[in-house]
């Protein structure tokens, strides 16, 4: 043993991504895979349930909106439109709802190790994303059965998924970071998520809504994502330019600004809370 002085490195303290990106990435994969395995191999009907749930929701909504509100008469390919929207929104809702309590759920790890805190909500979103990928296979099979023929615009859908993934991650970061301090975030978020469900063109296309209402819906960053996605799936004939989306560039600009704002807020809140989370648990 030498008596030479060793190089001392500052102990960094807990943070969102402490301990290096490679380690955080490996952890993310490991946790997401474990969660995924748990969901699919833990119960006999694991996979069946995860597909059946959005399909059942879809069946109920379809019954209500075709027989009660007769949307199928107003909207081209309404069942396919609705199915795609429900599956996509299901991803957002499920990921954020699970993310709320995710850090508290991993209490043991957070309180005992220098665990990169960001990995926890991120793993939830990734697991749900796997789920979505599997659901989309079934969804598109159904959409074809429902009489929509595949078009080249389907190839653009990964862009929609990426936008949705980023936004879902941002929201998950916010709710999971605030939950240890404010335990009613879970209840509040459940209500907001429900409001968003109706405030996003999932059940209805944006063009059936009155202009006043569109101004409100435009505040919702999810609206253009869903609008665009559903057009690409069910109405490839609709022109693509952004002017058509949301019925105007100003509204679209507001939605984009809010989207960016939520992402920035997420990073800010998470970085602020991450070092303190272990103390709040």
């Amino acid at each position, binding site marked *: 043993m030498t008596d030479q002085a060793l190089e001392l490195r500052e102990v960094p303290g807990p943070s969102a991504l402490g301990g290096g990106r490679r*380690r955080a990435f490996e952890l993310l994969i490991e946790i997401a895979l474990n969660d995924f395995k748990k969901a699919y191999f833990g119960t006999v009907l694991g996979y069946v349930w995860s597909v059946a749930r959005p399909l059942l929701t879809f069946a109920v909504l379809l019954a209500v909106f075709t027989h009660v509100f007769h949307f199928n008469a107003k909207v081209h390919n309404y069942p396919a439109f609705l199915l795609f929207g429900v599956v996509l929104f299901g991803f957002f809702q499920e990921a954020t709802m699970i993310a709320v309590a995710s850090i508290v759920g991993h209490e043991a790890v957070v309180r005992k190790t220098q665990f990169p805190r960001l990995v926890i909500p991120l793993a939830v979103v990734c697991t749900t994303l796997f789920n979505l990928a599997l659901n989309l296979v079934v969804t598109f099979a159904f959409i074809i059965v429902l009489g929509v023929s595949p078009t080249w615009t389907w190839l653009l859908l990964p862009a929609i998924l990426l936008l949705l993934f980023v936004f879902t991650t941002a929201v998950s970061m916010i709710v999971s970071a605030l939950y240890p301090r404010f335990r009613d975030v879970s209840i509040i978020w459940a209500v907001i998520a429900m409001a968003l469900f109706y405030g996003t063109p999932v059940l209805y296309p944006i063009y059936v809504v009155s202009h006043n209402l569109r101004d409100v819906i435009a505040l919702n960053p999810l609206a253009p994502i869903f609008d665009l996605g559903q057009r690409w799936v069910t109405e490839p004939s609709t022109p693509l330019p952004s002017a058509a989306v949301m019925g105007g560039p100003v509204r679209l600009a507001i939605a984009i600004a809010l989207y960016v704002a939520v992402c920035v807020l997420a990073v800010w809140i998470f970085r602020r809370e991450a070092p303190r989370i272990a103390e709040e648990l």
Partner: protein
Amino acid sequence: MPIRSPTISADLADSTAIKHSRRSAGPVVIEARNVDKTFRVPHHRVDSIKERAVHPLTRIEYRELHALHDISFDVHKGEFFGIVGRNGSGKSSLLKIMASIYRADAGSVRMAGRMAPFIELGVGFNPELTARENGVLNGVLMGLTRREARRRLGAVIEFAELEDFADLKLKNYSSGMMVRFAFALMVQADADIMLIDEVLAVGDAAFARKCMDVFHERRNAGKTIVLVTHDMVTVQSMCHRAMLIDDGELKFIGDPDETALRYYRLNFAGPQRELPGERQPLIDFNAKVISATLRDAAGAAIENVEEDAPISIDVAIEAARRLDGPSFVFHVRNDDGVVVFSFTTRLDCGVAPGQRVRLTGLIENRLVPGRYFLDVWVRQDDSETVFALQGLRLLAFVVFGTGSHDGLVNVGAEIDVSLEP
């Protein structure tokens, strides 16, 4: 000079070897400078937004809890370093700052080498996952790739002796199995610095032995171990140096024996908190205890005694019935309920109901450090039979000190040792 403990246990024999093999201090591997940590504890916890919203203008009042104040120390490579202190003294917070779980408000901690923490008896498990999955997760957490982590897992499970339970979810593990697994993971991480919080509090004797073996082996391999503990026996037998923290302040750093002694003084010599359940009187229909006090040499009331210091008692007992020439049989019991010794004293007259008897005196103190109870049996010696009327618990006290804990009492012994010509 009497030899205090003629028998030396295997543990202590080993540890003596450690202390004597102490070499010149290696390079510094942990350097803490002026570490401060304050927790803000709300007077009533505001953890709902509603409460905030209802009273948006009232500032939440926080009580500042100074967990750590201006702590600076160095730990050298290859050192076994103890951190001791009472509950709530801040020692665990300090370890958590060193382990990057809490962030220090001020000051810095710097380290050289890879660090593995072992905190609150665990390394951070997800109870819903199997031991295998948790093992891989922990390996990755310790900086291994997933493949490496999987490769090392076999050795971990073997070390923890959990081969038959590797695919069981951890929520179905017993606490002993969990600790064994956690400890095995930490050991196999092969870090340069191990930060350990109270590992020996649970687990059976065999496991404790295994921990000790590991500590010895790691120490010899030049690894550094920082151990937070209440157990002064471990501190005295294992540590090269130890540090005493009280109320967030560093009180002493250096020789483990001295640290242990200061810890005991802090615990037992200060104003005593009432320990629940220890002074409940037994049924007292024949006699009852009015007062029972322990005093030091100067006559001041104390609650606990330092080893070798004589025990002075002052007891008042009230008779509830007529007693003719009663005897008082004192029993000193240790924590295991064993009567360590007993002595009797007799009052050669009658005692009327309601009258009080005072018993004062000095007991020579050869008790080894530990917890003791002083009981008295009030006995009536009739002409034909002797029967005890009443057993009374007088005192519960601790004999504190750093002498040998072996056996029941320390009796003097003088042994000459020399080489035969």
